[in-house]
């Protein structure tokens, strides 16, 4: 098991190198640092002097890959690639284009993201599985039919409208909770209720339908018929047999996203003014802060790969047949 985890971690290294090369190409080769400086300083009326100064302040004035002027190993380390991309492997994110410490900001902001994403994830999973099991229980009846119709309707509505509608209904019309904002400690609760509810509701359509498909596929298998033939009640069949056997396809989709919960949701956080990593990314996009976007891309990939590894490990918990050699 430990050998397997180590091997998986080693596999992750070439993938992260690939991610790094892609982001480096995107951010420094497609457009030169000069172009970025020009966009930041305003395209018109920008002096070469100002560009030079902007690049120097942010450390973009070095050679891209190979610094011929420096001696020895410095020829490779005193470059943009080493300073900005290789150092990401040590989680040294450096400074944003505005001059703030990115690592510090990330450490500060991820808890707010988690405060929303984790409840949405847990409550959502419970709700979707319940609805899907109910629909599987009432399969081929009107409950099931209208349930599917409702799901298709709900998944055809853009997530933006759930947020706008929820804010209008609960925040403005009923005046139950503040529309947006955030506070530390226990005060955070009143700000979190609405985004969490909306997060859960907006996922009902697609997720419930997906889980229903999985359950129905399991229900048509032979072992379920055997269980019913033994005289087990339908509820017991559903919970003890179908749910347990449907865990593998469910886990595949679910466990991957757990580490990514730290990243938060871009749209939700922007709408509700939550100071998490999602709104951090949005602010960076809007102010064209390339350093922050670059750091978030790398962090997101790391978390995704961690999620993949955890998924594989989680299979052993639900399916004793899965062994890692």
């Amino acid at each position: 098991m430990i050998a397997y985890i180590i091997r998986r971690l080693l596999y992750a290294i070439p993938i992260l190198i690939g991610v790094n090369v892609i982001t480096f190409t995107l951010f420094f080769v497609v457009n030169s640092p000069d172009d970025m400086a020009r966009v930041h300083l305003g395209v018109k009326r920008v002096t070469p002097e100002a560009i030079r100064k902007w690049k120097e302040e942010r450390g973009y004035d070095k050679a891209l890959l190979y610094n011929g002027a420096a001696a020895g190993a410095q020829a490779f380390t005193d470059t943009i690639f080493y300073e900005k991309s290789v150092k990401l492997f040590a989680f040294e994110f450096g400074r944003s284009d505005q001059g703030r410490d990115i690592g510090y900001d990330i450490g500060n902001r991820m808890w707010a993201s988690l405060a929303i994403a984790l409840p949405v994830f847990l409550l959502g999973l419970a709700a979707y599985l319940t609805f899907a099991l109910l629909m599987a229980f009432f399969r081929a009846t009107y409950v099931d039919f209208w349930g599917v119709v409702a799901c298709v309707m709900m998944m055809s509505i853009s997530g933006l409208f759930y947020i706008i509608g929820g804010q209008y209904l609960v925040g403005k019309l009923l005046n139950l909770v503040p529309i947006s904002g955030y506070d530390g400690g226990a005060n955070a609760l009143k700000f979190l209720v609405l985004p969490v509810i909306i997060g859960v509701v907006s996922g009902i359509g697609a997720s419930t339908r997906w889980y229903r498909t999985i359950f129905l596929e399991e229900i048509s298998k032979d072992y379920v018929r055997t269980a019913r033939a033994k005289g087990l009640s339908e509820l017991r069949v559903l919970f003890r047999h179908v749910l347990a056997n449907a865990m593998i396809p469910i886990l595949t989709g679910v466990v991957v996203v757990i580490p990514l919960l730290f990243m938060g949701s871009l749209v939700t956080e922007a709408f509700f003014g939550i100071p998490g990593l999602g709104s951090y990314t949005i602010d960076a996009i809007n102010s064209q802060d390339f350093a922050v976007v670059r750091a978030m891309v790398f962090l997101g990939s790391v978390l995704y790969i961690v999620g993949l590894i955890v998924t594989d490990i989680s299979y052993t918990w639900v399916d004793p047949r899965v062994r890692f050699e």
Partner: protein
Amino acid sequence: MPFKIVILWTDALIYLLVVVVLLLAWHVRRHEHLAAPWRKVARSPGGLAAAALLALFVVIGLADSVHYRPSVAVKDGKTVYAVEVLSLLDAIAAPLRARKEKTYSAPLATRLFAKETIELPGGGQARDYPRLKHGGAHLEQPEEQWASDIARRALWGAAAGVVLWLVLAILLCALLARRAGADVDEIWRAIWRGETEVPWRAVLVTLAVVLVAGMPLLALAAKYHVFGTDKVGQDVFYQSLKSIRTGLVIGTLTTLVMLPFALLLGVMAGYFKGWVDDAIQYLYTTLSSIPGVLLIAAAVLMMQVYIETHPELFDTVTARADLRLLFLCVILGITSWTGLARLLRGEALKLREMEYIQAAHAFGVSHWRILTRHILPNVMHIVLIAVVMDFSGLVLAEAVLSYVGVGVDPSTISFGTMINSARLEMARDPMVWWSLAAAFCFMLLMVLSANLFADAVRDAFDPRIRTARPFRLAAQKA
């Protein structure tokens, strides 16, 4: 020439797509085994009704994809063309586009949404809601005539809708009757009893709803702003119509862009195995391990920088916005081909062990020929299902991306930009709700019909479901 045809990049690709679809349709018609699943799609009422609605959207989108620049003056024997690029839809909906108000006005309103200081005819000033320049401008006393005028126009529109529907329905019956060699009357009754093989009843009902709801809309749009106007006074109904093309372009061109990658790489990985498989797997694992939104955001940011620092490459605003739209499709395609490639790899891995492939090997058929003649046709159902399933997701993604600020150009009218600009209107009191409502309705209709159609296609093409069908039929009979 009174106009100059402009072919934008997305236009060219849309024409290409139309040609490809027509060729495929012709090919499918000639081969019974390919046509059979499509006949199954045509037998599902929901799918057919959704297809009818989608067809309407496609017609609007296609009309919006024929672009030209009108001439404004003739100088020294040379025609000077306007900087503005218009489309066929703009020409049809010219009144909607041209009748701009000053700022917000509610749906069907005759007065502006905000109070202004107006000069009274007898001298002096007053603060009141001024009359709109165009909306309901034909009314002498808007307060008294408004309700009756609206009702009259809506009724006339509905009546025209009913007549049009009857004409179309009878035409359809006549056509079916001629083909079947039966009476029009018989066919008509058979349709309403639901006895025709293709559920025409569903199509006719959809058509009736669309016409009876749509014609009053058009009748009212002639004199009013049916969905109100936005901040700069532009008609929201016109914006909704223009958004349709953007949604369709994103939903279809993205697929067109990603298909070659997914097909070639996915099938090759599964068929050749070995180092080819390793390399391709590495490529798509790396790409898919970057969270989609972030990769799109990074790529779009870089494209913005490129466009801003190279303004000389684009002669009109529309051309710039169009290239940005195309680039967004490419980026979305690059981030979304990995899922399909993975599916195709798995299928190709299975297929390459089949007897008929081994027989082909034994006969010395080349790899390329095996891939194109034997593997490709047998994975097409997966491709088709993936393509139709992706469409609605892409339309929804466009709205979110435009909201985040990494979507289409702000000058491109799309559902995302409509919602984005309506965001601030929410805070106003009383609320300006009509932009959101219009975007919501149009988007829901489009995505819902796409979802229903996708379900019908999946049911018909997915072999797992195909084997499950007879069981259910048997159960119903028993």
